């Protein structure tokens, strides 16, 4: 492509983008005036709550990608299993009918995280480790296979079944504060707080500990890392464990927030995983902070788009933002652009 034609293309794109932005701005401004401050505030609250949910899931994608450079399509299914395992524990204790004690929530959180970490480590050892040297596309297909397997095994009658279930209310979801008709609820606050805590812990783990250094080393160059005496398999296992545990936390919070969980092959999980993944990519995959920023951006686009533009095109906004971000900054908002060498 010659420089001149490139310039023309960019001018055309720019003009189109400006026109689009103007229309968009007008619609949103009108919507803001019409909806008033209550709607705006509520939408902001919704954005933060949904963004935290995406962030927890996106972290798992980004961690695995950071270390192994492949998209773990089975991650959203681990998330699903997290939700279902939480449900199974809660109903095993009979908290579906009786009031749950205060320690129920942290206990289930820990148990579910441990169970999912074990699941993640097992998946990695059985399905991904044999393919460490294979092309990444193969690992990707294997991940899809694992995802299919988890979805369909979860559906079996003696596992979780095909009926949706009601998640017992482990924390009383009352309204904490009310600002001009907008309620800020306990579960939403829990989701945001837990997401924040886990994020900070993860940051600390990755940048402040020896283990984190080892993880970054493996991410940087697996072979050199192993030459330096790092047990690569162990690090990868741990990474999977951490990612899966985060997914379990996300799954539990999801079940608490929406109070019901659908069967494991339902499109809810697929779409949630897809959007969380998009969030990780938009933020710059492999980057912890980027994943969170991406999650909030995606939630923002979805919520504001649905509230002020048209709810019919909600998914469209997500993917349009994805494409726009990648075209402007090919490695995502926070991603490092890697210079390819010969």
């Amino acid at each position: 492509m010659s420089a001149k034609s490139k310039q023309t293309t960019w001018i055309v794109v720019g003009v189109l983008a400006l026109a689009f932005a103007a229309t968009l701005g007008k619609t949103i401004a009108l919507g803001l005036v019409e909806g008033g401050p209550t709607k705006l505030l509520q939408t902001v609250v919704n954005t933060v709550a949904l963004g935290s949910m995406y962030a927890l899931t996106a972290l798992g994608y980004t961690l695995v990608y950071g270390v192994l450079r492949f998209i773990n399509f089975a991650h959203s299914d681990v998330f699903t299993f997290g939700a279902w395992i939480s449900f199974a524990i809660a109903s095993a204790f009979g908290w579906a009918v009786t009031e749950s004690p205060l320690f129920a929530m942290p206990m289930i959180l820990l148990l579910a995280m441990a169970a999912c970490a074990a699941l993640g480590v097992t998946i990695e050892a059985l399905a991904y480790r044999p393919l460490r040297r294979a092309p990444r596309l193969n690992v990707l297909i294997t991940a899809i296979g694992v995802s299919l397997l988890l979805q369909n095994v979860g559906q079996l009658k003696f596992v979780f079944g095909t009926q949706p279930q009601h998640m017992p209310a482990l924390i009383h979801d009352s309204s904490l504060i009310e600002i001009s008709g907008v309620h800020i609820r306990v579960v939403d606050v829990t989701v945001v707080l837990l997401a924040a805590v886990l994020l900070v812990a993860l940051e600390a783990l990755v940048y402040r500990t020896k283990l984190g250094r080892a993880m970054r080393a493996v991410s940087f160059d697996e072979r050199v890392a192993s030459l330096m005496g790092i047990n690569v398999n162990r690090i990868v296992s741990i990474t999977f464990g951490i990612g899966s545990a985060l997914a379990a936390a996300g799954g539990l919070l999801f079940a608490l927030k929406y109070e019901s969980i659908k069967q494991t092959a339902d499109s809810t999980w697929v779409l949630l995983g897809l959007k969380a993944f998009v969030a990780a990519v938009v933020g710059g995959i492999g980057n912890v902070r980027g994943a969170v920023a991406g999650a909030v951006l995606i939630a923002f686009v979805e919520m504001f788009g649905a509230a002020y533009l048209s709810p019919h095109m909600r998914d469209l906004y997500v993917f349009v933002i994805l494409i726009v971000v990648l075209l402007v900054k090919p490695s995502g908002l926070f991603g490092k652009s890697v210079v390819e060498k010969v």
Partner: protein
Amino acid sequence: MNLSAWNKVLVIAATLSAAAFGCGKKGGGSDAILIGHYASLTGSEATFGVSTDHGVILALEERNAAGGVKGKKIELKTLDDASKANEAGSVVQRLISEDHVVALIGEVASGSSLSGGKIAQQFGVPMISPSSTNKKVTEGRDMVSRVCFLDEFQGYVVAKFAKDQKFDKVAILFDQAAPYSKGLAESFQSELEGLGGVIATKQAYTAGDADVSAQLQSIKTSGAQAVFLPGYYTDVGNIVNQARKLGVTVPFLGGDGWDSSKLAEIGGEAIEGSYYSNHYSFEESRPEVQEFVTKFQKRWNETPDGLAALGYDAARVLFAAMDKAPTLSGKDLGAAIAATKDFPGVTGKITLDKNRDAVKQAVVVQMKGGKPHYVATIVPKGWPSPATPADGPAPTGAGSGSGSAAPAAGSAAGSDAGSDAGSAAGSAAKK
């Protein structure tokens, strides 16, 4: 690369495949009547497919225990289509030309029934869809019939009910990826506007969107008096919960997709006071209903949802037609099914019209105390009103004495008292 090992793998695979296909052909002894059921046993619609399959199996076992049809046992072959309309086509082709089934039952999703119905029609094998509500499913296909409502009718039912309840300004929140939901939303909108009502706002979600708070927020600000939420119970509980948390206090209205014991479980308190139209109400005291619910619980250890009831009815309509048909050839059986009249189904008296669509009256129920309670009966346009049950097709049991299509708030309140004793409920409406 070890080629000889690879060869062995190929040979084994080939042997296996030959064996598997061979097994497929053996099914169905010569002295049994084989019917086929194609259903979503796996995949995103598995919840509904498995329920329907349970209903069909129950009907079959019951019938075989009673001696089968024409002195022969009936055999059922259920094949999975993985919730994909395009696999449904292959499955139907397989059931017809490999297993030589005499009739087919399926599917829940209209898209799958359209795929399968096309093949059933071309090969002249009768097919009964338990719960595909789109009108295109049976259009121009004389082998295809169904035992459920059409979207058009149900949209009318809910719109009429809403108008009678003085809900003049109704918001719609529908699943734009589900033909069922979209069809209902469209017919509801045109019927309500025809009756003089107003659509406050029309919002959409996609079944995968767990979070619909943005849409609900718009509904809240629109000033609607009720929200029409056509969707399946799997989504409804979650959405209504969110709505209540956002401060949407108006009642929700729904269609037969709501029908499940899970609805109250998932929806909890949030769903209380909402209405939905249904084929029947499982608290009805009609013997068919009570018997079915008891048997189903005994067999499957769960409460049947509406789809299980429809699967059960589809199978029984088929068996009844088999009794009546002179032979089991596609032509005779198809004609016998199309001639179904006043069949006492669990989901109401089923009569097939000239398009082989079930014409039934609908009941509207309200969720109270974790159970649906009968509120009103609404008959198809052109039927005499249920006030005169003597002429015209008999209305479903529970509704027969209620007197008017207009819902009596009193009857709902009255039945509230009886809600503890499951079968005694709906007393106000009972004859």
